[in-house]
Structures are given as C-alpha cells and as structure tokens.
C-alpha cells in the first residue's frame, strides 16, 4: 500500500509556441504523504498550475513521471479520475440558467453518484459552507464569493481521496476566504486518508493551512519543508518595510552591508520596499541613503521573518 498520495519524479514540462520554448517545470521531484495538506507556494507563472494539470491528468509531462495514489498520471488516468477532484480560483464552470443545486447535481452525475445520495451531500455541503440560502438561485446571478463556494462544493461533493485546490481563494473577500480555509481544514481532519494539494501565492494561507510547503519558482522546487522550518532559514534575519516618496532610484540598497535582498513596488506617490537584512546597524545606513537622495520616509517598520522573506531570500523576487 502506498504511503504517498503523490509522487513526482524528474518531471519536466516544456511548451512550444511560435514565440519560442517555455520550460514551465524543470526536473521537479516531490512526494506528498497521504493525509497531508500540502502547499505549493510561488508567484504567478512559477509552474504551480502546470504541475496541478499534470497531477489531475489534464496534461502530460514532457519528461519524467507523476503518480497519484500509486497510479501513473500519463497511463492510468481511468484509475485516478474517480479518486480526485479540483477547484481553481476564478472558475466559471457550470451553466448560468441552472440553479446552484441543479449545477451541483449535474456534476455529481459525471461521477456516477446516485441522485438521492448527491442531493443529500449537496445539502450537507451547503450547510457547512454556509450557502443554503442560494441553493435555488440561478448561477448567473451569483456573486464571486457565492460562485466560488459552489465550485468548492462541486469538487468536495464527489468525496475525493485527493483534492487539488488551485488558488481557491483568489479574488475573494476576507470573510469568504476564511470560511473556505476553515472548511478545508475541517474536511481533511475528518478522515485520515484524505489529501489536499493547495497552490497559492498568499503566504499567510500556505502558512495557516499547510503541513508542508514546497516553494516553486521558475519551474523549480527551491525549498520544501514545514512553514516553521522554512522560516528558520531566515531566523537570523529580519525584514524592513518602508514607504518612500517620491519615486527615486533604489539600486544602491543592495550595496549596503547586511542587506541580503530587496523588492520594491511602485505606488501612487512613491515606492514600497521590503528589504531582508541581517544587521540591525545597517538600518541607519539605509535611512541616511534615502535622505541624501532626496527621499522622504513615510513609513518604516521592522518585522519578524515570514515565508515571503524566505522566498525573497531564495529568489530575489516577491510572491505577489
């Protein structure tokens, strides 16, 4: 019996287009244990969704092999499909003229679930995800949050052994996102053989939910561990958050001793910076540098390291 829900071995995925070749995944290796809530954390375009597509039998790897519950995703999709399901953020599946209940029932039929059982599960899920009030509402009249709750219910309705949640809270308001996260957390603890693979670029979501997290960047897994252990990698460091006005050149920051990496984002009237550093004494040099260059510091804060700092240290990029 396999202890791993997922095994990915030396997987490459290369896309060829008129514009050239894109290496979306480069020699990816990972194992997800049964019963684990596993996170794939990375910025847009890192390769998260490509990996999910391979694991959900929608895409073939160019090289290498992937297994879900011991079955090869390229050759044994018929055995995998009844055992998995997937939800993506911003999904528009279903038919607008059907009600939420009818849509969910329809998708359940593609998994061979008897109507009576399906209808019972729909009511249970509606109660758990707090959308009983919209069960008879047409899908085309739903808000984004209501629609995503329906999508979540669609995937969990089939009681999968492994569920893939691809940016499930993308674009949702705080409350709906929180409800979805707590539902996922409850669901996985109800039975020990359930596994969740979650992709996200929200670090707090990965940190809050996941047992282990793989950080993926430019198609490569660059770190894999628990959130706690990942943060230990930057335990001797801290982040400095600054807001500067007006927009000025900041390339000099990297030459200051003790600065490991930084990212800057343009805002309306200036810049927002996140600097990862290892020497507190260098804060003065940074402040002095801005003043000498005509920059005004409107906000300054020193923070404990987060997963974003781990990512920043490893890649030199931000997550969002």
């Amino acid at each position, binding site marked *: 019996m396999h202890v791993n829900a997922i095994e990915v071995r030396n997987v490459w995925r290369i896309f060829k287009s008129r514009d050239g070749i894109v290496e979306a995944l480069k020699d990816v290796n990972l194992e997800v244990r049964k019963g684990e809530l596993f996170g794939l954390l990375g910025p847009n375009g890192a390769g998260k969704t490509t990996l999910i597509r391979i694991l959900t039998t929608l895409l073939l790897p160019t090289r290498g092999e992937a297994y879900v519950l011991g079955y090869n995703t390229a050759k044994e999709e018929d055995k995998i499909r009844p055992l998995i399901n997937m939800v993506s953020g911003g999904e528009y599946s279903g038919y607008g*003229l059907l009600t939420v209940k009818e849509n969910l029932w*329809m998708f359940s*039929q593609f998994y061979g679930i*008897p109507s009576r059982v399906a209808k019972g599960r729909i009511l249970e899920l509606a109660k758990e995800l707090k959308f009983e009030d919209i069960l008879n509402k047409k899908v085309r009249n739903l808000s984004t949050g209501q629609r995503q709750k329906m999508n979540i219910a669609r995937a969990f309705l089939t009681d999968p052994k492994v569920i893939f949640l691809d940016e499930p809270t993308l674009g949702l308001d705080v409350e709906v996102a929180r409800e979805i996260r707590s539902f996922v957390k409850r669901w996985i603890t109800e039975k020990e053989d359930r596994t969740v693979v979650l992709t996200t670029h929200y670090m707090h979501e990965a940190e809050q939910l996941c047992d282990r997290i793989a950080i993926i960047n430019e198609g490569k897994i660059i770190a894999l561990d628990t959130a706690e252990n990942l943060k230990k990698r930057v335990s001797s460091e801290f982040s400095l958050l600054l807001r500067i006005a007006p927009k000025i050149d900041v390339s000099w920051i990297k030459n200051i001793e003790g600065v490991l990496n930084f990212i800057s984002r343009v805002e309306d009237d200036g810049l927002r910076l996140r600097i990862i550093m290892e020497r507190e004494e260098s804060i003065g040099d940074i402040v002095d540098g801005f003043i000498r260059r005509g920059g005004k510091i409107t906000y300054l804060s020193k923070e404990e390291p987060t997963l974003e700092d781990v990512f920043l240290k490893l890649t030199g990029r931000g997550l969002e």
Partner: protein
Amino acid sequence: MMSFLRAVKGRAYPRVIGALREPSWMFWEIFLPLLSISAYVFVYRALHAPPEFEGFVILGGIMTAYWLNVLWGMASQFYWEKETGNLQHYIMAPAPLESILAGMALGGMFNTTTRAVSILLLGTWLFHVHMVITDPLLLALIFLICLAAMYAMGMMFSSLFLLWGREAWVLNSLFEEPIYFLSGQNFPIKALGSYVALAASIIPLTLGLDAMRQLIFPSSLPYALMNPYIELLILSLLTIVYLILARIFLKKMELLGKTKGTILTRWL
C-alpha cells in the same frame, strides 16, 4: 452502464430545462424561422410551382432547426465548454466523454423537437400544406435515423472544431449556408444534378429530407434522388461511421490536448 446513463442524464438536463426556463426562444426560434420559410413559400407561389414545394420548405425549416442545433449545440459545444472551463471538468470526470456528448445530443434533440413541432404546426396551418403520409413507420424510422446520423456528425465535429483551433462561430458559418445549399433545404436536391446530389449524400440532412419528402408528398416522387429504403440504409451506415469517427477524434483530441496543453484549457 448505470454511471454512463447518469452522465447522459446529467448533461441532458441543462438542455431540457433550458427549453422550459427560457421562453424567449419562442420568438427567436419559431417566429424568425417562420419568416424565412414564408419568403420561400411566397416565391414558389409567385412562380406557380407545384404545391408540394411549399411542403418542402416547411419540412426543410423543421430539419434546419435540428441542423442548427447540431452545429451550435454539438459541434461547437466543446469549444464553448473550454471557454467557460467546463471541458476540463468533463475530461477529469470518470464518465467517458461519449456519455457527455450523448447527453448533449439527447437534450438537444428534446429541446429542438419542441421548436420543430411548433414550426410544423404553425407552418402547415398558415400555408394550408396538405400532407399524405404513405408509410408512417418508415417515415418515423427515417426521421429518427436521420437525427441519429446528424447528431453523430455533430459529435465528430465537436472534437474537430477544437482541433482546428478556430473561433467556433467561424466554423459554424462555414457549415451553415453551404449545407443549406447542398442538402436541398428548400428545393429538390436532384436539381443540383445526380453527381453533386450523390456527393452531398454524406450530409445526413440531404438523404433524410429527400426520403421524408417522398413519404409525405407522394406527388414529389419525380424529384426524388433515390429509393427511401436505400436512403435509410445509407443513413444507418453514416450513423455508424460518424460514431466511430467521433470516438477516434475524441481520443485524438484528448491526447493532443494533453500533449500540447493548448486545446483543453483556455489559460495555457
């Protein structure tokens, strides 16, 4: 088998319920086609054509409703499903894609039959078309086998439309007007000459219309292309061929989609 039937029922449901829930189709799909039919009827009347020609137009209008459903509701459906994100869920589900297509077809047939019957009743009433059904059983059989062949053709196109990678409405336009012409929607197909008519017989609508005209308007026999029994046989063979091709192209589409990454999902 039960799972297959459940998937068929599931996918047919939105189409069946759509007909009941959206009454606006009555205007768009009965009144507007009737206008088009009326134009042909008045042209034939002005030319003092035999009265059965008016019946040809009504029958053509009925069968065109099915052809439009085959094009817009079957052939291009996977394209629309890909755009909305449904296609990836259909592929990921354990139900075979054939069951999804069968559900679309049955739902589409139900949906279109309500329209077709309305056109038939209103058309015959408005233009006093006189029908003499000589062999109701054969007529029913030809009608059903013609529908089966048309929807099997639609199933085959559903994969091809995705593989060709064009906007679905462009391909639909390509298959709309030429098929109206080649199927002899409003005139006896024999008028195009025997060779063209025979070549056009790969379109189920052509043979179906020709056979049904003979069985509903016996005076139209001089315009008939071939014996209705032979047409029934060819339509049955076409159904089998199109179903086999649909299955082959489905597999090919899925494999190509999984290899290239651009066919099944919109975002890649």
